[in-house]
């Protein structure tokens, strides 16, 4: 039992801390086009290679390494699509792709030359990755994809999308769909948490045979979503840390009725409750990160528990951070409001509290 970082992890954390501290907030507008200079820095630091196996051209980082990165990005509220544009589509690609597919897509992804996005969500399926209506029909000369995907984070900046679809043999397929494919229509918008996303229509999109990644992708997708959820928990913990720090600093600095707000007992205890939620959420993020290599049922149970727990904790911290900042916390210009939006909307990514509680409930041991 050991909760200390290795020397390499300590270095990684320190590097990221400095990087993030120097970083100005990313503008949503800047997320649309080409990868930003910061993305280049990520590439230089090896962050884009970190979460991939050496065999896939990566550095072989594990769940804890990803946690360290995401926590730092959350702390700095860095809105570069590390998760949506790299981690989710990249690990799915690495898991499923054959050598030519890897060479064409994975290698440049890890070099920072392009970004991808994972289109897995559909309106009627809510957060369920399996109950999807998008279908892929096998043709003589390849595939025809028909359907619609919603809220595909980072799609506007993606060269290609990884699209999940039900194949006519009943298996779950994942297809690599270039963003400029005829029949692919994107509607782009910013999100409430300062990211960019698209709703995507796939109207008879024709793809070559080799557009499908591997065979039945159900287990691979589950694995990647587990990684993504653990990563989101870590990101939320980083953001909660920052929100707690900023709120505490505000309470100490701000005076009302002649004394610092920090001297009011009710606000002290509220701040302790925030801190308690942070520390418990941190524990769950660690548990999730450390469970990614476990058997899938154990992994998914723990990850769902962590995502549900962090969802509640993040919302509590966000709401109290706004409340304790008073009217200031309601303004765009006060940085806490961006953290609060991030922490609340955390719950709408990769399944919310209810979704994950339902999962835990179904797997609850009776003993």
């Amino acid at each position, binding site marked *: 039992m050991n909760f200390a970082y290795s020397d390499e992890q300590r270095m990684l954390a320190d590097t990221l801390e400095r990087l993030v501290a120097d970083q100005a907030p990313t503008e949503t507008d800047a997320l649309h086009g080409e990868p930003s200079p910061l993305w280049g820095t990520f590439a230089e630091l090896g962050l884009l290679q970190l979460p991939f196996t050496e065999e896939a051209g990566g550095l072989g980082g594990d769940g804890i390494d990803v946690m360290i990165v995401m926590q730092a990005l959350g702390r700095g509220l860095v809105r570069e699509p590390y998760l949506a544009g790299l981690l989710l589509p990249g690990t799915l690609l690495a898991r499923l792709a054959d050598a030519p597919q890897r060479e064409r897509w994975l290698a440049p992804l890890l070099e920072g030359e392009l970004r991808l996005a994972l289109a897995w969500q559909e309106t009627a399926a*809510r*957060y369920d990755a399996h109950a999807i209506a998008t279908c892929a029909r096998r043709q003589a000369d390849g595939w025809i994809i028909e359907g619609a995907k919603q*809220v595909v984070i980072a799609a506007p900046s993606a060269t290609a999308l990884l699209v999940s679809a039900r194949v006519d043999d009943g298996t779950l397929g994942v297809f690599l769909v270039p963003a400029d494919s005829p029949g692919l229509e994107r509607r782009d918008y910013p*999100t409430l948490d300062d990211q960019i996303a698209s*709703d995507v229509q796939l109207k008879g999109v024709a793809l070559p045979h080799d557009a499908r990644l591997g065979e039945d992708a159900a287990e691979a997708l589950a694995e990647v979503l587990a990684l993504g959820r653990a990563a989101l928990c870590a990101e939320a913990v980083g953001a909660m840390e920052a929100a707690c720090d900023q709120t505490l600093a505000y309470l100490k600095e701000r005076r009302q*009725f002649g004394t610092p707000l920090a001297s009011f007992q009710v606000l002290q205890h509220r701040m302790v409750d925030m801190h308690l939620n942070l520390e418990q959420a941190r524990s769950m993020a660690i548990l999730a990160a450390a469970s990614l290599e476990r058997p899938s049922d154990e992994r998914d149970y723990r990850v769902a528990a962590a995502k549900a727990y962090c969802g509640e904790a993040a919302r509590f911290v966000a709401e109290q951070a706004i409340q304790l900042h008073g009217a200031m916390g309601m303004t765009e210009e006060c940085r806490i409001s961006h953290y609060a939006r991030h922490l*609340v909307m955390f719950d*709408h990514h990769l399944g919310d509290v209810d979704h994950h509680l339902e999962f835990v409930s179904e797997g609850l041991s009776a003993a």
Partner: protein
Amino acid sequence: MNLEFTAEEQAFRREVRDFLATGLPDDIRERVRLGRRLSADDHLRWQDSLSVRGWLGVNWPQEHGGPGWGPVERHIFEEECAAAHAPTIVPFGVSMVAPVIMKFGSETQKRHYVPRILSNQDWWCQGYSEPGAGSDLASLRTRAVRDGDEYVVTGQKSWTTLGQHANMMFCLVRTDPEAKKQAGISFLLIDMETPGISVRPIITLDGAHEVNEVFLDEVRVPVANRIGEEGQGWTCAKFLLTHERTGIAGLGHAKQALRHLKSVALEIQHRGRPLLEQPHFRQRVVKAEIELMALEVTHLRVLAAARDGGAPGAESSLLKVRGSELRQELSELTRRALGPQALPFFPDHLYGDQELEREEAEHAALGAQYFNRRKLSIYGGSNEIQKSIVAKTLLGM
């Protein structure tokens, strides 16, 4: 004991409902329903419609042109307005400065301002809060120095709601820097066109422009624009703060928000069934419904006491606390109901004229509204302040 409205009150409710069916322009109703921002003109069209009907001065006595309603009628009116997606009456003129002028103003001031308010000629905003003062109103620093028949006012006001549309501001200023906190404050009416005034928007975390900062740089205000005596400003402010707090629970809004939540949760599907049938989601809706039942009876108890001559004091703080908590919970459930669809953000639609497809428009405001509703537990005295008031006044702690 009897919880029913009288036959007269029920007839009045029908009368309000009938008026709303025709007196509220459809385009305005639709913008309110969809949570989109209203233009100044939208507000004015609605308030003109009310003015013509004689219902604008909701809390005014008849001698000043008000309808002479009691607390129960006002409650019914507010509830029906919320149900019909009518805009809230901009309160700064009608509900706030007008009663102060009627109570403390000179005859000249009354004759000049009161009719202009009732005919929507002036758009008033409030110059109370200052940056860094929060709920501690009495610590204000904007100063007014007497120079002949004028005050020269310098300072900064904040959280000035809809100040971007206003041509008049009522303002608390410090006229005696030597006097202790509450003393030495005066109540001035300031023309927003006066040189030295500038208004800067504050964008809130839902992307909206509702509030502003107002900078006053040697703004010259006639002494004739002072309400009451010099140094009597705190008395006016306190009168205004305690006046008319029966609507504070936001009951009509809460009811409307619950109806809206149910309609969204009926439409959104979860595992092939309406989300409203998902046990845990439904449970939270059920609890909100029960909390609302309790809040409504408590509200009626306070109304009945007010009607019978009692002064709702600390009870209105209780209503504000529970009312804001409930409305925040409803906004949370509505956001959550949307699932991934809560993420898209369309500021040009919500705050401008960009049109969306029907279905998208129905949900476009709900994510941002959750964030907007966070203000309910902050403004008008935060819930922490409200609880301290109750502890002090009602419980003697």
